């Protein structure tokens, strides 16, 4: 990793965007934003803007891909050409294919796939604007889209990253912090079942630093989970509020 003169954390311990080390970016979540999809959700986490939609479960095409004992979760993470500074080619890149797989593996344990054998569930994640931590935000929003689609789930899945920047452990890394920092640890959990469904690490950390980072990410996930739940309920509670 190249050394940079730019300070990512000032002498007061605040980050470039003015956040404290253990502070999340501002979050806005909306559920059920697309009427043509079976389930959908939208998240704004700092400058990230991500849309998720699900279709299904429906019959698998082509037929030979159908699994005899469970439903197939098809996941596509895609970044819009205008989502980053330099235009991104709309064709799926190596990175997008990998993130699609990572997201699928993070969500699969939360869904009762065995209820609907031979079918498939299509999940489309569209990153409209990216600013670091899109894989985590995608997992959070995709889980809401699944819940909105009425798919039976063991738990919601929520994800958040933590990492090391300028020698400090910080929560919810932005693009700059991810690129110039020393380490990035994305973590996805099922909060009620107390289970980790995704844990990656990029960079270098000592064992004790790693443990602290995971602790940070866990705290971030729990804060995010509250927002996630509120957003899901909000879609229905507004109607209830009118009448009762």
């Amino acid at each position, binding site marked *: 990793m190249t050394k940079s003169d730019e300070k990512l954390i000032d002498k007061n311990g605040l980050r470039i965007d003015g956040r404290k080390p253990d502070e999340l970016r501002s979050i806005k979540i909306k559920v059920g934003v697309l009427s043509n999809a*079976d*389930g959908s959700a939208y998240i704004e986490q700092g400058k990230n803007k991500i849309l998720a939609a699900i279709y*299904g*479960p*429906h*019959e698998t095409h082509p037929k030979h891909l159908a699994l005899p004992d469970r*439903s197939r979760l098809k996941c596509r993470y895609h970044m819009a050409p205008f989502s980053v500074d330099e235009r991104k080619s709309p064709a799926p890149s190596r990175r997008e294919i990998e993130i699609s797989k990572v997201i699928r593996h993070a969500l699969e344990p*939360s869904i*009762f796939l065995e209820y*609907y*054998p*031979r*079918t498939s569930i299509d999940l489309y994640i569209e990153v409209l604007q990216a600013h670091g931590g899109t894989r985590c935000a995608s997992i959070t929003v995709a889980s809401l889209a699944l*819940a*909105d*689609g*009425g798919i*039976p*789930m*063991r*738990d*919601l899945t929520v994800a958040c990253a933590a990492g090391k920047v300028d020698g400090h452990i910080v929560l919810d890394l932005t693009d700059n912090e991810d690129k110039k920092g020393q380490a990035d640890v994305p973590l996805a959990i*099922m*909060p*009620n*079942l107390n289970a980790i469904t995704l844990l990656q690490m990029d960079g270098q950390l000592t064992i004790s630093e790693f443990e602290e980072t995971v602790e940070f990410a866990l705290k971030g996930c729990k804060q995010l989970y509250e927002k996630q*739940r509120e957003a*899901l*309920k909000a879609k*229905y*509670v507004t*109607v*209830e509020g009118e*009448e*009762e």
Partner: protein
Amino acid sequence: MPTFFERKQIVTPGDLIAEGNYIAGENTFKKDGKLYSTHIGLVEYEERKVSVVALKGFYVPRVGDTIIGKVTDITMGGWIMDIKAPYAALLRASDVVERSYRPQKDELSSIFDIGDLVIAKIVSYDRTRDPLLSIREPGLGKITRGQIIEITPTKIPRVIGRKGSMISMIKRETGCHILLGQNGLVLISGKNPEYNRLAIIAIRKIEKESHTSGLTDRVTEMLKKEKESEIKND
């Protein structure tokens, strides 16, 4: 044996509803003696059974359900139908054709063509095989008139109401014939389009406010008001 939510309270997937000696009802699951929700919905207790009434869901076939299907394909042995479920349903030609079915002679598309809507009953289904339909009962068969609307299948019971109170009220007030497919498709055929419109807004209102109480009275009131304004306009 504590419970963590009151009756009719809203839960999200993964919410711990109860702990201990409870039976997991619809839209819930049990793990290590703890009972969780699998859907966004409202909690319902029935003695020791805990269930969640889902606010959104898709149709899962059940034997005995009356459904409305759309013909999507015609094969040698019958019709493939879209029943708004994860699986396509099959209606066998031998079930429909009088006497014995002869593939060389009987033209299936002259009975039901692609795009036709059919009221049918599910006679067999399990997770290993696609649902099988039948129309050998009075009231089943091709739909020739009326209007179709689609609602969330989980809300069909609410449209029916307790012992059919809601649906019979709408039928009485609007004079429409209404057929509820368990898969969320509703057939409305009234004497004129104005009555159809009334029935549709009533059903849409129920769908939107299904989780509130005293709904039957509010729908009755709304229908009466709409009818009055109708008379004034004429």
